[in-house]
């Protein structure tokens, strides 16, 4: 009889796989973004199960709160007409076989490598210890500053590419394929 932790993990894992499969095979673009959001929230639950409290909250803030919302906004901005939200079915057998082969390889590697048992700790470190290690000079302070620089550069780039202070240039060539013409 599995104990409560295993049951909870099983439920969360099953929900994650269902959400991931729904994300890659649904025909509606907006539904795909919703399933990505569901996956982000369930990943935070997995982090909570692994006693990584701070990372779980950051996952909710960054992925569920920023990345998923960004994708929903981009879907909204790049949809010429609400009818185009439903796309034709996109199935690729070669990709499916390739992904299946990679999964088989990874599972094989997992089951032929030595087992790692969990180190027994009195209690897992909390947010306070995480912060002490993160901002220690011999800890992770330098990568933290570099990560801030990366984010600043990325956001400046994103604003530069999408601002419309100058007049909009007209579309020069008809890029739409035949099936999407109005």
């Amino acid at each position: 009889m599995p104990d409560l932790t295993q049951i909870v993990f099983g439920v969360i894992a099953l929900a994650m796989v269902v959400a991931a499969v729904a994300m890659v095979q649904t025909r509606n673009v907006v539904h795909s973004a919703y399933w990505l959001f569901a996956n982000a929230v369930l990943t935070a639950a997995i982090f909570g199960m692994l006693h990584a409290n701070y990372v779980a909250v950051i996952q909710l803030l960054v992925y569920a709160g920023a990345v998923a919302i960004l994708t929903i906004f981009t879907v909204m901005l790049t949809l010429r007409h609400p009818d185009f939200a439903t796309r034709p079915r996109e199935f690729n057998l070669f990709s499916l076989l390739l992904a299946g082969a990679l999964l088989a390889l990874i599972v094989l590697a997992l089951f032929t490598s030595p087992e790692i048992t969990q180190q027994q700790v009195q209690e897992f470190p909390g947010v306070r210890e995480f912060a002490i290690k993160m901002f220690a000079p011999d800890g992770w302070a330098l990568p933290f500053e570099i990560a801030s620089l990366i984010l600043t550069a990325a956001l400046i780039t994103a604003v530069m590419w999408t601002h419309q202070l100058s007049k909009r240039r007209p579309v020069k060539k008809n890029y739409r394929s035949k099936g999407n013409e109005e």
Partner: protein
Amino acid sequence: MTVPLNAYLILAAVLFTIGLYGALSRKGAVLVLMSLELMSMAVTINLVAFSSFVTPIDMTGQFFTIFAMVVSAAEVAIGLALVVAIFRTTATIELDDLDELKG
């Protein structure tokens, strides 16, 4: 017996391959970026699982996860800004239609 490490690793592997299938088979730019984000989340699950099982006091994997999340968020911001800019000049984001560089 509680949840073993292999369970988390297999879950991360399954999510990674599902994201890989989505990235290879989808034909809209935003959908490909969403699948890439799913792959990135699978990798972070892997990192945190190893951190919790092998170095629970040092929390090394959790720090790696924070930086991986930062880089991934920056990448998705730039990628989506690129998609919006492309849509504004070419009025389409179907990857099959953006073939000017095709030889």
